[in-house]
């Protein structure tokens, strides 16, 4: 089963490797192409670039609209991560450990935000927050993003809790710790990899989200909304520089999560 070429490699295997190579090329090409573009010296989308410069990174840093949007997105994503991790972890405990009528229904409700299309939720939230005059308020976006992030936290933390050996917690309790103290001091540190992964999922799902932010943000743009507007109106390579920064950020986060997290894949 080694992909290394061997004499007598069957034809279907060669075809398989070629096919996979093409698919990997297709998947990576858009990520790779933004790197040379972002270092272009030309204001037009020329490829290959006529010369190299850092001017689009300078343009990004000096443009307060871009920086405001970035900071706003970071603020929203961090708040979403905290809110969704706390609520989602508690819910996961309740769902895995508790036994009460209607638990199956609660489980369904907690996963439903993944099934309901984003556009439906976005306009529903828009009409709700418009009524309480919260359009343009960054906290409204946090609430909307947390709705989408909670299911991820429930899935990842719930999976860890199902395989967690509760004997450790019981041991701590038999040594005199209360239930909550045992969870806080014994259980949570042991499922830390799942918590790290859950936080990563929550952060990225908020940081990349466009449609909810588009409806709830008003004129206060998040980074994805600013990118969306720029793509529609004026394509200049500043957006390539922003893209490179995002690809680098995600790669770094992935390295961190693969060191400290678990189950960073949605299935597996």
């Amino acid at each position, binding site marked *: 089963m080694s992909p290394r070429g061997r004499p007598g490699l069957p034809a279907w295997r060669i075809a398989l490797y070629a096919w996979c190579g093409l698919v990997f090329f297709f998947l990576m090409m858009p990520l790779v192409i933004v790197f040379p573009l972002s270092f272009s010296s030309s204001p037009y989308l020329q*490829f290959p670039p006529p010369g190299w410069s850092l001017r689009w990174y300078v343009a990004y840093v000096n443009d307060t609209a871009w920086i405001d949007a970035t900071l706003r997105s970071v603020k929203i994503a961090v708040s979403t991560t905290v809110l969704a991790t706390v609520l989602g972890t508690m819910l996961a405990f309740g769902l895995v450990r*508790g036994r009460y009528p209607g638990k199956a229904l609660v489980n369904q409700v907690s996963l439903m935000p993944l099934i309901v299309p984003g556009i439906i939720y976005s306009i529903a939230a828009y009409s709700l927050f418009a009524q309480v005059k919260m359009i343009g308020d960054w906290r409204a976006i946090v609430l909307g993003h947390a709705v989408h992030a909670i299911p991820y936290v429930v899935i990842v933390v719930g999976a860890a809790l199902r395989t967690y050996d509760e004997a450790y917690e019981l041991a701590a309790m038999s040594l005199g710790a209360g239930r909550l103290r045992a969870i806080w001091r014994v259980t949570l540190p042991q499922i830390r990899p799942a918590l790290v992964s859950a936080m990563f999922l929550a952060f990225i799902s908020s*940081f990349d989200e466009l449609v909810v932010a588009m409806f709830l943000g008003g004129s206060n743009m998040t980074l994805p909304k600013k*990118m*969306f507007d720029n*793509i529609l109106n004026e394509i200049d390579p500043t957006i390539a520089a922003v893209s490179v920064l995002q690809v680098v950020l*995600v790669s770094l986060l992935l390295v961190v999560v693969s060191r400290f997290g678990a189950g960073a894949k949605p299935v597996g």
Partner: protein
Amino acid sequence: MTAIAAGARSARTPWRGWRAHVLAALFTAPALLFLLLFFLWPVLRLLSLSVEGGSLAPYQKALTDGLYVQVLFNTALIAAYVSAVCLALGYPVAYFLANAREPWVTIGIVFVLLPFWTSILVRTYAWMVLLGRNGVINRLLLETGLIAAPLPLLNNLTGVLIGMVHVLLPYMIFPLYAVMRRVDPGLLSAAEGLGAPGWQVFRRVYLPLTLPGVLAGVTLVFILSIGFFITPALLGGGKVIMIAVLIESQVRQFLAWDFAAALSVVLLAMTLLVYFGLRRLFRGDLQWG
């Protein structure tokens, strides 16, 4: 060892006693209230707008007006195309990932995960650069003399399909990979040992064993496709109208909330039909993650 065995048995033991019930309820309540207040309630309120006037006129418009029927049909067709292409691209890749040796598995998984985690806007922008009239691909093909005039790759169905397949391919690969990793290689050897040719081993043994993964992947990709907004809005150039794009414009441009609500009900019904229909058919083999 006894402690571990006992622990394994107790790992799924629910909390006992009335205090434990109270505790479980207290743990569940905040998130449940949050989801009821900020998710379920607004969504139900929106859906109810579709019948607010006491008539079914918005539904009649959505389901009989030729223009809108066409949008619904196009949406389902695009979702079917995307699912089929993702399956064709993803099945061999998942097989490779499930059977290759290190370091190839890790490298392959990184090549799937890195795009998966990259912002959809970054990727959509990159596709516009690649596929445009003066884009990278057309330049390359023109300069090498393979084509005489630029190919229309952007602002049409081709562009939307390429962009959507790129976003959704990982959703096909992950469930396939999860199922393929659990296939017992002994079964394949047994079939070969009994004299089945390679094609028969695949068709009679491997494909049926991996079918749950295929169905999970297709369901997931189809459901996500029919609700897609960003990619058709940016790569379709206003020519590819999918139902989510239509809902957005009804709210933003025309403030036609009752019609947007009726379209939302139709979209949600399509989604749930596919989700529960396939899940029922295959007895909960679908893996969401």
